[in-house]
């Protein structure tokens, strides 16, 4: 547990990291470093995106599964590690 906390702290302290959100399977944020409204917004939208991405991957080959998703945009990059119990979402702006 302490290791997890440490790692989270380190990630938060890395250059350009804007926020970390951990969402459980139902879409309820468990842990977040952003404000509430952004968290809820991110959680909801990303949930749908991940579902779509996962369906896409698995429709093509049912034995395959989604392991990581990165969305690079102009201003930042959203990195999502999905799992069946949770989503780990990190928003980073690497050029900051």
């Amino acid at each position, binding site marked *: 547990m302490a290791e997890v906390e440490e790692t989270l702290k380190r990630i938060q302290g890395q250059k350009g990291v804007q926020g970390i959100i*951990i969402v459980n399977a139902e879409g309820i944020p*468990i842990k977040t470093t952003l404000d509430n409204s952004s968290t809820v917004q991110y959680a909801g939208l990303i949930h749908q995106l991940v*579902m779509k991405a996962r369906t896409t991957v*698995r429709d093509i080959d049912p034995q395959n599964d989604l392991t990581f998703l*990165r969305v690079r945009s102009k201003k930042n990059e959203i990195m999502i590690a999905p799992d069946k119990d*949770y989503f780990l979402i*990190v928003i980073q702006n*690497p050029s900051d």
Partner: protein
Amino acid sequence: MSTTRAKPKKPTLKVTPSSRVMNVSTSGVLRVNHSSTYARSINASVSRKSFSLAADSKILDKSSVQTPKHTVQVFDENGKDVTPQPLYQPDPAAVMSKHSKIFASDTSGGTMSDFYSTAYQTTTNASFAGPFTRSVFGSSTVSRGSQSTMESMNEEIEDPSSKRDISISLSDVQVRREEVKELIKEEMLDDVVDRYLIESETLWLLHMPAVSVSVDSEEAESVKERNNLYMELCKNRMGNDKYVERSMQTFNGAPKTKEVQSEAITMVDAATTATTWDMYDSFRSAGLGEAALSPDTDKASVPEIVSNHRLDPTRAPERTMSVISTTSIASASSSRIEIEPFVVPSEDEPDPELVLQSEKFQQDLFVMERIILENIYQPKLAAYRQLPTLEDPDSVPKVVPTVVSRREESSLDEESTLTPALERLWSFSCELTSGHNVSSMAWNKRNPDLLAVGYGQFDFKDQKSGLICCWSLKNPTWPERVFTCESGVTTLDFSASNASQLAVGMHDGSIATYNVESREKTPVIDSSDCAHKHTSPVWQVRWIDHERGASGEDKGETLISVSADGRISKWFLRKGLDCIDLMKLKRTRNEKDKKQVGDKEKKSEALISRQAPGLCFDFHPTDSNIYIAGTEEGHIHKCSCSYNEQFLETYIAHKGPLYRITWSPFCSDVFLSCSSDWTIQLWRQDLFTPVLGFTSTQSAVYDVMWSPKWATVFGAVNEGRVEIWDLGASIQHFHHALVPLPSLDPTIVSLASPGVKLTSLLFATETDCILVGDSDGQVSIYQLKNLTVGEGTQVAALEDIIGSTLASQL
């Protein structure tokens, strides 16, 4: 007309005996009810409209009609009795006495079954049944009598009361049907029952008399006459007084609106999405064999499988409760799955804390961290791996481009990039390591991205606890593994045969091996219990691969160490870690000094130990029996594993302790040595004086290493700077001048940050980068830029240089 299908009629014949029984049973009930509705009421559902039943006219008492019982039997081609069981089986134990009333012996089976079927539909409304029964009976009798008129039907109508009773009692009978049938079935299973096939009576279901008559028939005349009469009548009707038209008005009942309210039917929308992976998942959960799991089988059996996936509205969409009802599956597993409702249980909500603590989460965090760092360090890492760096198109362009790829040379930078230089890429450091002195670094033999760094003080004073960190290139901000040791780490080396084994030598003389794969913090083996362990700091450990087993020992890797107590030891695992001495480094006195320092020598004989502290050693790259060792006295001894008493050779040139000695990886008889006397010497193993010496500054040279890529390049680190020497470049001028060389200049010099001493150097194997460790705990990565050495490994060049140098010395 007679029905041609005799078979269905058969069972009814069988029933006849029992029908009589039924008669008897019902007869008792007959007297009870006297419904008055039997006479006229005809139920709308009765399709026998043609029957107009007269009242009680001519009710025949059929009691007299007694025909012998006929039983019908049906046999199929195998001789099996497949007689259809009657729908109603009255109690066979009942006495069959009076046969009167309802059922004649030759009641057709159809009538019976019809009767029964209609009877089952009835309620206990006798009136309903009344006309039915009559019609049924009427039909039966008609067929018998071969008369198709209604009168005959009516004639045969029997005692209404009996009929009524039957209809009523049928509802009771209905209940008893099941059990009676059961009894008979069991009893009669093995019996051979005789069945007789006879033609049944004709059933009149509908009789619509024709409305027109043929001209040729005998009735034509009468019909014509009647028609004419009628036409006359119609004509006369117009002005006739006999016929008066009158209109009437009827009172319509006042309508009343009545409202009825019922509860709304709740509708639930159920949506199903059957995706390929959903079906695959359901199959897997249902425990199908592997054959069915292949996507081909999935697709093939899609049309045959009916699977409903109902989205549970209360849960997130990805948790579906799958209800599979498979009717037929045409696949290898079809036999196993019969119709079974199957529900995939959706798991309970995992505790948020559990989520955070799960292994998978830690793994994901780990990967995420690396990815974030990759984003940050991407240009640097790309430069390290000699990939073209990608400019971020959206990032705000900085004033000074920080990364200049080798291939993209803008005009501005052209001048600056032509001179060889070291470019600092990044450094491995974290708060754990700050303040510790980097004493040694080693690459992992199998994973070129993994670096082990040992932290420990060289001096005997301010000894802190040592630290070993395993860094990965993918994460420069935090080490992958951290091991703390009791005393400072002075040296480490990765094993080649067992890539996760790391040997560590420490300042208190102990040697330990760690397994870097596991997350344990303790060493695998420790030499602290060994009887022959070193008593002074271990200055170097190395895993050596012996190709030829010496003195019958098995081949493989052994750990060799040299320490300040003057011993070079070979360690092996026997019952615990144990070592034997390969060599004891005796103090050798210089011949020259001996003569000069005559008597004084005697005084100086009182040495603390007869052994010279060994500081470094290196095994020959091709011949693993030969090695050279450097001592604190400045002597280099060439030794062999076969002789542990004497040195093969001794090279004396340095005036201070030798910190590093290393064979050239390309030229097998050339080695380099560096010492605290500010010099680096290049030797050839057959010459007792160094071929070349290099001095740059007046500070002790802590580390020197040959470049793994070019034979003429080596790097050295002294207190204040890191230098890259390229013999090929700097000697060019000398070559032509044929002048004994003064001091050569290093090709590249990079200064350390003020206050920080550089202590160790390591070349990267695949790329043109060097790692420099300093006394502040930082390991910096520098990239060699624009070091134009020429093609190939320059072995020939090195040999040329040596040759020419020697030639010039003669």
